[in-house]
C-alpha cells in the first residue's frame, strides 16, 4: 500500500517537472551562472569584495531610491488601477468600455522604455504638449511650480503608465468575484458605502491587492529602459548602475554588476516572503 502512495507522490511531482525543468534551464541556471560572478574578481579569484562594495554610500542610495520609486509607483499604480478596475467591473459602465480598457491595458502594461519616456517628455517636458498648452492658453507655467518631469516624482508618474494597466489586468478578476449579496447584506444592516468598503470589500480583496502590488513593486524595481531614457544622466537607481557596470564603455566592472543583481534578487525575495506572511495573516478566513 505504501508503494501505491509513494507512486502517487512521484506522479504528483512529475506533473510539474516540465515547468521546473524549464525554469531551471532558462531562468535559474543562466542566472546562477552569472550571478555567482558576484563572488569573483575579473580574473576568477573568489572574493566578497563585490558584495561588500554594495555598502558603498552611492550604491546604497541607489538601492534606496530604487526602492522608493518602486514603492511609490506600485502603490500609486495599485490605487489608481484599483479604481479603474472597480469602475469597469462594479461601476455599471457599458461593457464595451470594459473590454476596450482591458485590451488597452494589455498594451499599455508593456509600453515602456524609450517610447514611453519620450511620450512623457513630449507631453510634460519643458517643451511638451501639455506644458506648452498650459503656458500659451492659460498662462500657467507648470515648471515654475517646482514640477520637474526628470525627477523622482516624474519618474513615478511615468512608471505608473505601465503599473496602472498591470493592476487593472490582474485585479479585474478578483473584483469580478465580489458577490452582490455582500454589498446588499451590509447595506440592509445599515452600513454606509464607506463602511461596506472598509469593513467588508477591502478586507476580502486585500490578499489580491497585496499580491498584485508586490508584482508591481518587482516590475518597477527591475525596470530600466524607461528610467534610463527619461533621466539618463541624473538618476541613481540600481538597474542603471547595474547596466553601467555591465554594458557601459566607462565603468565596466561586470562582477560588481552581478553583485548588484544579486542584491535585487535578495530584495525581491524578501518582499515575497513578507507578502506570503502578510497574506497568510490576511487569508485566515480562507480555505
Amino acid at each position, binding site marked *: 500500500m505504501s508503494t501505491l502512495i509513494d507512486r502517487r507522490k512521484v506522479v504528483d511531482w512529475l506533473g510539474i517537472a516540465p515547468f521546473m525543468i524549464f525554469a531551471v534551464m532558462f531562468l535559474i541556471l543562466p542566472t546562477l551562472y552569472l550571478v555567482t560572478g558576484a563572488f569573483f574578481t575579473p580574473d576568477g579569484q573568489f572574493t566578497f569584495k563585490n558584495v561588500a562594495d554594495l555598502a558603498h554610500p552611492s550604491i546604497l542610495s541607489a538601492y534606496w531610491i530604487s526602492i522608493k520609486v518602486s514603492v511609490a509607483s506600485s502603490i500609486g499604480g495599485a490605487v489608481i488601477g484599483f479604481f479603474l478596475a472597480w469602475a469597469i467591473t462594479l461601476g455599471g459602465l457599458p461593457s464595451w468600455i470594459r473590454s476596450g480598457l482591458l485590451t488597452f491595458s494589455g498594451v499599455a502594461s508593456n509600453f515602456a522604455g524609450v517610447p514611453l519616456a519620450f511620450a512623457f517628455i513630449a507631453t510634460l517636458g519643458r517643451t511638451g504638449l501639455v506644458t506648452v498648452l498650459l503656458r500659451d492658453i492659460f498662462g500657467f507655467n507648470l515648471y515654475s511650480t517646482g514640477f520637474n518631469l526628470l525627477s523622482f516624482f516624474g519618474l513615478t508618474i511615468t512608471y505608473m503608465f505601465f503599473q496602472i494597466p498591470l493592476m487593472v489586468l490582474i485585479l479585474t478578476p478578483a473584483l469580478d468575484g465580489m458577490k452582490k449579496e455582500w454589498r446588499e*447584506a451590509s*447595506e*440592509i444592516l*445599515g*452600513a454606509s458605502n464607506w463602511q461596506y468598503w472598509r469593513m467588508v470589500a477591502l478586507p476580502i480583496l486585500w490578499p489580491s491587492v497585496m499580491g498584485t502590488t508586490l508584482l508591481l513593486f518587482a516590475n518597477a524595481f527591475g525596470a530600466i529602459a524607461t528610467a534610463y531614457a527619461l533621466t539618463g544622466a541624473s538618476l541613481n537607481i540600481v538597474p542603471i548602475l547595474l547596466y553601467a557596470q555591465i554594458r557601459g564603455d566607462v565603468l565596466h566592472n561586470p562582477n560588481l554588476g552581478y553583485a548588484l543583481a544579486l542584491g535585487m534578487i535578495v530584495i525581491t525575495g524578501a518582499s515575497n516572503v513578507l507578502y506570503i506572511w502578510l497574506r497568510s495573516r490576511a487569508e485566515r*478566513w*480562507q480555505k
Partner: protein
Amino acid sequence: MSFLTLSNIQKSFGPVQVVKDFNMTIDKGEFVSFLGPSGCGKTTILRMIAGFEAPSGGSITIGGKSQTNLKPNQRNIGMVFQAYALFPNMNVADNVAFGLKVAGKPAAEIEARVKEMLGLIKLDHLAERYPYQMSGGQQQRVALARALAPKPQVLLLDEPLSALDAKIRVSLREEIRMIQQQLGITTVFVTHDQEEALSISDRIVVMNAGRADQIGTPFEIYNKPATRFVASFVGTLNLIEAKVVDTAANRISIGDQGITLREPLGAVKAGDTVSLALRPEAGSIAEGAKGDTALTGTVIASNFLGSVIRTRMKVGDAVISFDMFNGPGLVPPAVGETVTLRFTASDLLIIRE
C-alpha cells in the same frame, strides 16, 4: 393593526412588468410567506421592501412611514439571503456584530447582544469560526442572527433554506419560526417549497406571474384553494376528468362509476367534462373507512415514502393516487389488486376557470 403595507406596487424591468398591482397589509408580528413558482416575482417584491429596487408604481409603508425615499441602510430591515452572504472575512461573532458596529453601538452593548444572538441560534461555541469552517445550516443560522441583531422592524428571508438539505431544512425552519415568535418580529418569508410555507406561516401569499392569486392562512390555502393554480401548486393533487351525467342531481361519472357531488355543478350540461381535484390523503381503502363516496380501481403502483405509502390506481382512464400511513403490520396493496377508495364527497372540489 397593519404594520407593513404594500399599496398598488408595480415593477417593470424594461418592457416586462414582473409585479402587477400588488396589494397587501401585514400585521405587526405576523409571519407571512410568499409562495410561488420560479420567476413569479417573489424576490422582486422582497427587494422592493428592502429598498434594493425602487417600485415603478405604488407605495410601501412600515409603521405608517413611507419608505419611498429611504435607502436600504436607512430602513432598519433585517434580511437573510438564500446563499447566506456571510462576510467571509469575519468570524461568526463579527458577522453578527456587523450591524451593531455600523450603527456605532458601544462595545459592551454589542458584545452582550452578540452573545444573546448566538445563544438564540445555539452557536455560542462557534463564535470564533469563519464562515468557510461551518456547514450550510450553521451558516444560515448565523445569517439569521446577523439579521436579527440590530432589532430590525421587519425581517425578510429570501428562500433562506433552499440551499440546505431536507433534514436540516426542517429543523431550521422550526427554529426560525420559534425565534420569530419569541421576538414577535414581523417577517416576510419567500419560498417555493409549499410544505415549508404551510408549516410555519401565519398567512401565505400564493403568487402567480406577478400577482397574488390568494392570500390566506395555510389552512385556507390548502383546503380552499381559490384558483386551479393554487390548488395544483399547493400540495399533491389528483386532477380527475369526469363526465357530467345529470346537472340537476349533481351526478358525474369517473370511468363508469357514478358519483354525486356536494358542490353544485353550475352551468354545465350532461355529457360535458369537468375537472375535479382530490388530495391523496383524503381517502382511505381501509376496511371500515368512513366516507359517503367510493371509487373502485386497479392498483398500478405502490410507493413507499417512509411514513406514507402512496398508491396509484386506475379508474377508467383516470389515475388516482392515495396515501396511507405506514405501519409495521401494513401490507401495501399489490399491483393488479382491485381496491375501493372511500372518501367524503365534499372532498371532491370542482376546478373552474
